[in-house]
């Protein structure tokens, strides 16, 4: 007899439908698994056999053939266990196969017949809905995550035995609550800007970066607080919308780092500077998401930027420009989402000493700054200083009320709202994502302001790209201030944040 069961495999973070076909017929007892399975799937034979027998079900002593279709796609991971076991049950007539036609399932089996959680349950549920299935059967631990998908019935299955009972209509699972935080549940505590003493310049730059989605370079000596400041950016970004939260959760579920609930916070990733290109943008024989993807819709922090491998920085070109990563392996191309704000940090100069005590020559400075150049620096709109805060300021009782993240976030949300309205229909969501053409059409200048910018451009040798960058940042500054028209002051401030000003020094 023949049975077919639908399940979903992960292609990067995208769900890929796989049909598990099981054929049971008389003959010498064998178990053949075809359809490009990896080692973990081959081993599923042993898990399936033990799980069936330990659940009081029968492992047929017949000629068994299992095919994973489409047969040309490589498949990996233990999430096929459940589909294979259920296929065997249906093909050997132990469960009715009618109930299987409109549902998809995924799960790893333990030898006792219990279901273990799998990676990417949310992705599988989304795939099942898109493919038109009515119902998705997942391990109990994955159910709240899968239930985030609306318009599909999610059943939490504790064990293989329960699943057989369900197919016989002798057991009904409890309805599953989606893993969204309740209205009275306090949001998890994000690090607050108020914890940071001083650093007003960096805080202002962070606010602009958050408001316009601009990438930021922080320059300052070691120990001045660059990492501490960067960690506070997710807390001042607008809270993720439900769609964004789903995207974040999908990525984290596929990478196996999620907590099985809807992500309520934007991710913050801070890989060490020895990270490889693959680690940063994803890769490997079985492509796994890289840090840039794990930071999707959040913040990627790259400390010690000049120490990063050249190849790693170069690999950032595509995600920075397109918000996604493409990885080609053999015949197929995987795509990972990778749209994050990048905060980079570096010292002011190789010797890292402040002001007058710096002994670096122009030659050394030039060499250091040349190491910074590349696709990342081309996409950095803002550069700010993080100076060591004087000890007196650290210990004194601060008279003024420190800036709190909630207040900054409120301003950021308002500024983002203005951008959404203005940029509606352009396919771009924030000022930081505007390209040169869009910048010039979306940032109109009054004649006096435009004339001043033109004069400045000649004096300080502003490149075309630098000019666009200044306009984008000035636009965000005006948005933060709630103004439609740009003032001269916005441009002045934006000018002071620009990065491309060292031609003469580096010559």
């Amino acid at each position, binding site marked *: 007899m023949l049975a077919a069961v639908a399940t979903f495999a992960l292609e990067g973070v995208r769900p890929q439908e796989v049909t598990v076909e099981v054929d049971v017929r008389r003959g010498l007892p064998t178990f053949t698994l075809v359809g490009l399975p990896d080692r973990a799937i081959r081993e599923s034979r042993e898990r399936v056999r033990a799980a069936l027998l330990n659940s009081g079900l029968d492992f047929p002593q017949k000629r068994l053939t299992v095919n994973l279709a489409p047969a040309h796609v490589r498949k990996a991971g233990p999430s096929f266990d459940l589909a294979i076991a259920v296929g065997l049950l249906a093909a050997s007539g132990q469960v009715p196969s009618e109930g299987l036609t409109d549902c998809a399932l995924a799960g790893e089996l333990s030898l006792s017949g219990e279901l273990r959680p799998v990676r990417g349950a949310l992705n599988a549920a989304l795939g099942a809905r898109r493919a038109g299935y009515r119902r998705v059967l997942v391990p109990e631990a994955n159910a709240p995550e899968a239930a985030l998908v609306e318009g599909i019935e999610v059943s939490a299955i504790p064990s293989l035995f329960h699943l057989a009972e369900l197919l016989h209509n002798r057991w009904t699972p409890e309805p599953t609550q989606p893993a969204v935080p309740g209205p009275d549940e306090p949001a998890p505590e994000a690090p607050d800007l108020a914890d940071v003493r001083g650093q*007003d*310049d960096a805080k202002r730059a962070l606010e602009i970066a958050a408001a316009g989605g601009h990438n930021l370079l922080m320059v300052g000596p070691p120990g001045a607080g660059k990492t501490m400041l960067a960690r506070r950016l997710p807390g001042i970004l607008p809270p993720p919308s439900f769609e964004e939260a789903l995207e974040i959760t999908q990525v984290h579920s596929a990478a196996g780092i999620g907590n099985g609930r809807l992500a309520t916070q934007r991710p913050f990733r801070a890989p060490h500077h020895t990270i490889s290109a693959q680690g940063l943008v994803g890769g490997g024989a079985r492509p796994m998401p890289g840090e840039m993807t794990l930071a999707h819709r959040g913040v990627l922090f790259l400390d010690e930027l000049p120490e990063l491998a050249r190849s790693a920085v170069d690999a950032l070109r595509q995600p920075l420009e397109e918000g996604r990563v493409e990885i080609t392996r053999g015949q197929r191309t995987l795509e990972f989402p990778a749209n994050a704000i990048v905060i980079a940090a570096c010292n002011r100069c190789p010797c890292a000493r402040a002001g007058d005590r710096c002994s670096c*020559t122009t030659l050394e400075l030039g060499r250091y700054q040349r190491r910074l150049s590349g696709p990342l620096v081309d996409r950095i709109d803002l550069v700010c200083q993080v100076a060591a805060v004087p000890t007196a300021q650290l210990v004194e009782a601060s008279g003024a009320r420190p800036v709190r993240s909630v207040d900054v976030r409120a301003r950021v949300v308002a500024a983002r709202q203005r951008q959404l309205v203005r940029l509606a229909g352009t396919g771009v969501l924030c000022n930081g994502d505007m390209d040169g053409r869009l910048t010039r059409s979306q940032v109109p200048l009054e004649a006096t302001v435009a004339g001043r910018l033109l004069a400045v451009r000649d004096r300080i040798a502003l490149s075309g790209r630098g000019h666009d960058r200044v306009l984008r940042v000035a636009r965000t500054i005006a948005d933060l201030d709630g103004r439609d028209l740009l003032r001269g002051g916005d*441009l002045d401030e934006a000018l002071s944040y620009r990065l491309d000003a*060292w031609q003469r*020094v580096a*010559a």
Partner: protein
Amino acid sequence: MIDACDACLRRAFLLAYLAPRIAGLLGAGDRRAHGLLALPEDALLKATAGKRLGEALGFLESLEVDRRREGLAAGGHVAVCRHAQPYPPLLHELADPPAVLFGAGRAEVLALLADEPAVTVVGTRRASPYGTEVAYALGRGLGAAGVPVVSGLALGVDGTAHRGCLDGGGVPVAVVASGADVIYPRRHRSLYERVRDTGLVLAELPPGTEPYRWSFPARNRIMAGLAQVTLVVEAADPSGSLITAEFAKDLGRCVAAVPGRVTSSVARGTNNLLKDGATPISGTEDVLDELFGVGARVAPESGRARVPPEPALAGVLEAAEGGDSVEAIARATGKTAAETRAALGRLEAEGFLVRRDLGGWERAAW
């Protein structure tokens, strides 16, 4: 333009032929070709050729000066010997003037050098941002005032002075240690081309010759000889720039230096020069006063407002001059970070501040 007599050309090519021998004779410690270049032909041969005297004589025998001259003309080179009229008159004051000056670029510049007093700007290859800013501003100011700026096309101060002179619309003159058509250092290719196209690249060695260790101090004497004032921007001690200054002093020309921080190693040479009586330079005007007499010629840009456009910006400018962080400037002036940034951007846009390195500012030289 070729204007050189047979004897002088003969000597120039002989010098190029003997150049590796001279390098061998001088060894690592001594880079100055003491007196060698002043020797007449036969004495020079005796002093340097040694056992290879026969070979060297053979070279002279087979040297076809006319053919060489034709080759130079065909290559578009400039060559003037010390008996020719366009030869810079000031160079005759040298104890060992080069027999022939080869050049690449505009030959008219030689006439300019005869009429206008020139300034030689030299300094370290490892310039600090301060030295770079000052060298650039001096080069630009002098260039704009119509004073030819002589330098050595080296990295650091030399190249920056050329660049400033070009940006100021002046006439740059580069004296190089190689042949005038050899670009050294390679990194200065585009600068070399700009200097050649607007001004003149001069050399003592014929075209195609690579530089030798001894030819750098040798070209320093030409730089010192060409100019009324030799100005050192930043120099360690000892250094090639100090050699140039010494040549200038021996010629009785004016030696000037830009004061530097006493803690900086690249300011030691210039500060020592000042202690020994060199003229301190704190702006283009000082150099112009030295050349033409006090107030006789003013730098075209000196009329520019030195006072910030708004009084509110003065405090920020003062604090920024001290190299303070944005944070410290904001504290000192009682402004918010955003207001401070706007003020800094304005001051930079108006030319009062220049970007120093990653996100820092420095007062623009002038």
